């Protein structure tokens, strides 16, 4: 370190000396210091050019001074930049790393917890890594390199179009396109970090390792999250592998049952697995009716999207939503670059629509769950984006009082959450009787004759291009859509996609669960159309964050330009509610973890499966564990140890501790039963679902 200091001193002295001399000499320092810095050099050349120009009009001192200071600034900037770079490289790695706070693992180890039950992690959508096995010439040299997640995206920055092409699936089959094979990265590396420094499972893994977990009793059930769930089995045998892995871990760890920890979409994937494994072949895994009871101790769902997420709607409808903006933040080069030009969204939409899995996240249960035109279970929710103080005081009061206080606050423009898409703000506020009603089913797509767009735009990218302007406007004229009519809407605007995906997913509520049609796999991932398996000793946890405004419904508008290949709809960001309203930038917010609303995450545990119901015939115990979101207090904390947001919650120490205790043998009652901060119980009371 001493030498560094000495060198730094030297640098300072040197630059100080130079500064006293004539202005345009300052670039010499840089040249001496590092010739590899091309930026510096080019900047210097620039400075030199300016200097040359400057030499001629020496007589005008005022102009001269201006140019001079310009050069000075450039020189200083370059020098500081270089110095910073230099010190960055000098610093030992250990200092650069954000000092990690000792996780709960250390403490629990001291308490005497040791690894008991094997743990299976099931990653969600987007977070799993994908690697290339076979590709087109543009992806040469990327064999078995990450296309998505994990390491750096740098390779792919250079060829964003190539990335989009390889990540897309076949539009008709939902499987691999010809000549492209992209596969999930297996093992723990598959989803421990999404990007360097951006953990997903890493913190949990590290803490589990502290009490003795390792490769033999910790498994990451990586799967290709773009495919529909049954297709992961058809193409990759992912479900069979998971079954075999769980059986192996069960046997090789002394016949200890497995604790499954799915996250986000992994939750419904695992639900699908639980049905699949007990179903006889060829459709199922043939594990027999007792399989779950024998092999699984607990399913600890993190941020479960049981009943879908409204965000998926906006994603499919117009490729907007926070996920996209999030990706854009992570990889600015891909989506904002000039190469893609203005059609970024269109290309992303085209890619996202080939992914069946997004359809699995559409809201399930229709109007019964998500509310109709005029009522919704969240009614009366108070949004306090700015009122931090209010939320703090409400923390101290108890739950019931809290919600009463909120009642008092009841705001003027009541949020009609049930209208998941409305066109224009009035349509989202007005009472339903005042809305013009039209059934979207009446529309026909017979307008191909007047489809002049196709000719002018060449290749059709999205199914919007096949629609006429007239039918696009018809859709908007319908004003408001609930979750039920939404599906019709999507079927109308993207018939091929929905036809493909609806062979794999269903979004309704079962009238009679014993109907033999429910043996089909497309119902397995919908908790409202399947029975839980007969495993009375199993436990189901719903663990999710609360206290973050979460997208719940949208206000749309027709996009102004009718250019070719543009998406005709977009969220109306100009619409804002008054203070205290839940409407912001065209989006109605409700309580949740930033991605999944409380309703979707908690309802099944709070009501649908609570006790013996028709969805849960054997009375599997359910527990709700909510974690109130607290933003990180200081920079050192990174993404926070008390965060409640959808992905960051995986670093929440309270959640990690719960998982570790269960993995080490505790039951739900031992870790404290339910822990509720939100209004989930009240909300589910309002939902009129036959149990």
């Amino acid at each position, binding site marked *: 370190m*001493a030498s560094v200091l000495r060198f730094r001193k030297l640098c300072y002295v040197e630059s100080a000396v130079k500064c006293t001399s004539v202005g345009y000499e300052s670039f010499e320092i840089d040249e001496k210091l590092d010739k590899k810095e091309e930026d510096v050099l080019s900047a210097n050349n620039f400075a030199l050019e300016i200097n040359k120009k400057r030499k001629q009009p020496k007589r005008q001192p005022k102009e001269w001074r201006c140019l001079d200071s310009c050069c000075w600034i450039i020189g200083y900037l370059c020098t500081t930049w270089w110095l910073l770079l230099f010190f960055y490289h000098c610093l030992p790695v250990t200092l650069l790393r954000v000092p990690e706070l000792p996780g709960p693992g250390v403490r629990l180890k001291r308490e005497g917890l040791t690894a008991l039950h094997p743990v299976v992690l099931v990653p969600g959508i987007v977070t799993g890594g994908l690697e290339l*096995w076979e590709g087109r010439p543009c992806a040469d040299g990327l*064999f078995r390199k990450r296309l998505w997640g994990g390491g750096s995206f740098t390779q792919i920055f250079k060829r964003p179009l190539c990335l989009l092409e390889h990540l897309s699936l076949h539009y008709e089959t939902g499987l691999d396109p010809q000549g492209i094979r992209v596969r*999930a990265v297996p093992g723990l590396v598959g989803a421990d970090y999404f990007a360097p420094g951006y953990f997903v499972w890493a913190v949990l893994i*590290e803490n589990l390792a502290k009490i003795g977990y*390792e490769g033999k009793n910790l498994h990451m059930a990586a799967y290709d999250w773009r495919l529909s769930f049954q297709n992961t089995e058809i193409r990759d*045998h992912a479900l069979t592998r998971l079954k*075999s892995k769980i059986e192996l871990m069960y046997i*090789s760890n002394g016949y200890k049952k497995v604790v499954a920890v799915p996250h986000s979409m992994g939750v419904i994937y695992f639900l699908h697995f639980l049905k699949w494994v007990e179903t006889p072949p060829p459709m199922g895994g043939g594990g027999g009716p007792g399989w779950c009871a024998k092999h699984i101790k607990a399913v600890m769902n993190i941020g479960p999207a049981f009943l879908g997420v409204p965000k998926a709607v906006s994603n499919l409808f117009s490729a907007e939503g926070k996920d996209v903006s999030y990706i854009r933040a992570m990889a600015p080069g891909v989506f904002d670059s000039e190469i893609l030009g203005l059609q970024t969204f269109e290309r992303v939409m085209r890619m996202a629509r080939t992914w069946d899995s997004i359809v699995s996240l559409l809201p399930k249960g229709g109007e019964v769950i998500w509310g109709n035109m005029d009522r919704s279970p969240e009614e009366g929710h108070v949004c306090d984006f700015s009122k931090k103080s209010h939320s703090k005081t409400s923390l101290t009061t108890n739950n019931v009082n809290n919600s009463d206080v909120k009642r008092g606050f009841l705001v003027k423009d009541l949020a009609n959450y049930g209208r998941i898409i409305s066109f224009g703000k009035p349509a989202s506020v007005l009472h339903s009787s005042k809305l013009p009603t039209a059934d979207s089913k009446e529309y026909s797509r017979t307008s191909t004759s007047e489809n002049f767009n196709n000719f002018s735009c060449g290749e059709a990218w999205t199914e919007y291009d096949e629609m006429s302007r007239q039918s696009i406007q018809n859709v908007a004229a319908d004003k408001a859509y609930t979750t039920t009519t939404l599906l019709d809407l999507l079927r109308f605007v993207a018939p091929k996609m929905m036809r493909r995906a609806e062979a794999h997913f269903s979004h309704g509520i079962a009238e009679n669960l014993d109907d033999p049609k429910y043996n089909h796999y497309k119902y397995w991932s919908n908790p409202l159309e399947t029975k839980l398996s007969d495993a009375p000793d199993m436990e189901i946890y719903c663990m999710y964050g609360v206290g973050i405004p979460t997208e719940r419904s949208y206000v749309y508008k027709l996009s102004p330009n009718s250019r070719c290949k543009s998406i005709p709809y977009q969220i109306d960001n100009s619409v804002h509610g008054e203070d205290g309203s839940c409407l912001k930038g065209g989006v109605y917010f409700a309580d949740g973890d930033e991605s999944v609303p409380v309703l979707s995450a908690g309802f099944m545990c709070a009501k649908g499966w609570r006790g013996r119901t028709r969805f849960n015939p054997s009375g599997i115990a359910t527990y709700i564990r909510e974690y109130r979101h607290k933003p990180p207090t200081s920079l050192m904390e990174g993404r926070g140890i008390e965060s409640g947001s959808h992905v960051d919650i995986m670093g929440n120490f309270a959640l990690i501790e719960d998982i570790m205790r269960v993995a080490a043998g505790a039951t739900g009652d031992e870790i404290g039963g339910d822990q509720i901060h939100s209004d989930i119980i009240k909300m589910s009371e309002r939902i009129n679902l036959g149990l």
Partner: protein
Amino acid sequence: MSFLRRRKGTDSSKSQNLRCNIVKEDEKNNLYESPRKESYNSKKWSCWDKGLTVNHPVVFVPGIVTGGLELWEGHQCAEGLFRKRLWGGSFGELYKRLEVIREASIKLTDFYMKLIPLCWAQHMSLDNETGLDPPGIRVRPVSGLVAADYFAAGYFVWAVLIANLAQIGYEEKTMYMAAYDWRLSFQNTEVRDQTLSRIKSNIELMVATNGGKKVVVIPHSMGVLYFLHFMKWVEAPPPMGGGGGSEWCAKHIKAVMNIGGPFLGVPKSVSGLFSVEARDIAIARTFAPGFLDKDVFGLQTFQHLMRMTRTWDSTMSMIPKGGETIWGGLDWSPEGSSFNSGAKTLRNNSINNTDQIPNINLANMKNVNYGRIISFGKDVAEAHSSKIERVDLLDSMKADMLANLTNCDIWIEYHDIGDHRIKAVADYKVYTAGSILDLLHFVSPKLMARGGAHFSYGIADNLDDPKYQHYKYWSNPLETKLPDAPDMEIYSMYGVGIPTERAYVYKVTTATDCSIPFQIDTSAEGGSEDSCLKGGVFSADGDETVPVLSAGLMAAKGWRGKTRFNPSGIPTYIREYSHAPPANLLEGRGTQSGAHVDIMGNFALIEDVIRVAAGATGKELGGDHVYSYIFKWAERINLQL
């Protein structure tokens, strides 16, 4: 079967090679255009027509040293290295730390330089008594294909083979890397990590999900022994075995394609155990020069390494097996004459050809006593046995045991034995493969006691003796029967044409207390240029690590036909690949290499593997493919079959 159609036209392997060479030329051109690291990665067996497709699932079993290890729990000094590679891969994080600290803090060098490599050695060591984890440290094998595709950045192991298999459609669901902790004894991998159970379960899964197609297993180096152990384990009843039943192998395995298999051990491991001077260490040294060379350990580098490697039970699995019967006695050895690198002609069915082997060569050369694996002094190595005066080792064992314990801060067993015992070792002069065991027992009793519980090095008189059901015999092909699977095939694939360590000339060092008392006498050189004694090492034909004798004998004789070691008559095939060094720098490590690890990039070998994986049998490949004198040597060995 499309490749059969292809075979009709070209039944001589020469024309194939010709075509492939053309393709390689093209690749070289590509390399000129973009000489980046990836370009080597994408080297493909483009000779193929589109005909071959995925058929049998493939299982890779990596060898010693090549598998990656990662840290799961460690001491204070390894903070922040959780789940980072300690071995293999790029050595990345650890080495980077070392580099950074070295650059930044010159003053503190002494402190850090000692600390970090010591920390590394400490974590890589196992417990000296049990051969398992030391308390507070858990180092585990990396799983998945990444475990052993590259040993270091740019130094491929399995990567080329994987890339080529992927070309015909293989992917994660049809390829499986049976990664295991190569430091442990084979049975301990099951005890600690349940590795054998995992392999069994994975093979069963792959057979089930690929329509009942049996797997093709491709073990490399020590993986060959590991898989031999596995095949016995899986059929043995629990608790010692996997309880798969006596037909498991017949049901699940189509072929075992052993690459560079040290079936009967490697002489190198003796020098490794005796004085840490094997070339494996040299390889490690080239990759991480900071670790081993730069006075990092001070003068005691070797002792530290020795201390580390001696805690690894697996090194003992490769001590030469079969004793004097196989490796030769004081005055004879199966190889007889010295290694002749000149004659490199294809010698298929060489049993018929043995007469034609030029005897002139034999006459020219001095008879090399390969049988004497260790001799003290060059003159002793060459003298006839009757002229050597030997002092019996056992006598000196009875001598006074009051060892003068030195103050060395590192522990190796050499410091527990006294000076006069060291002298006794040297006085015995000559050691054959049989007496080498006594020697090792003598100089490091604890180590051998631990190893003896897991490995055995003899030849079975009666294989039906119930004692051979113990797991310590399972990895010795001379003490086990192959499974009852007549449809299975066993291939021995290895490189030939590289001088390979076969026997050593040692000397006693008179250095300080704290050094290893024995060293290879690097000054011992053979008389003529053709001599196979160079730098104290007698070389024989082989692949640089494994002598032909060890790699080929079982397939050439021990298992050929129905023998007592192979009761069901599993067909065996020998596929030798003559070593041709890379023609130019751009070829990297060569596409025709025969060296122990580089052979994994040998196109001829890759072709064989791919065709078997796509469904071909050994006969369709062309049966035996022999360059060396292995059949002749096998005849000289008097092994009861």
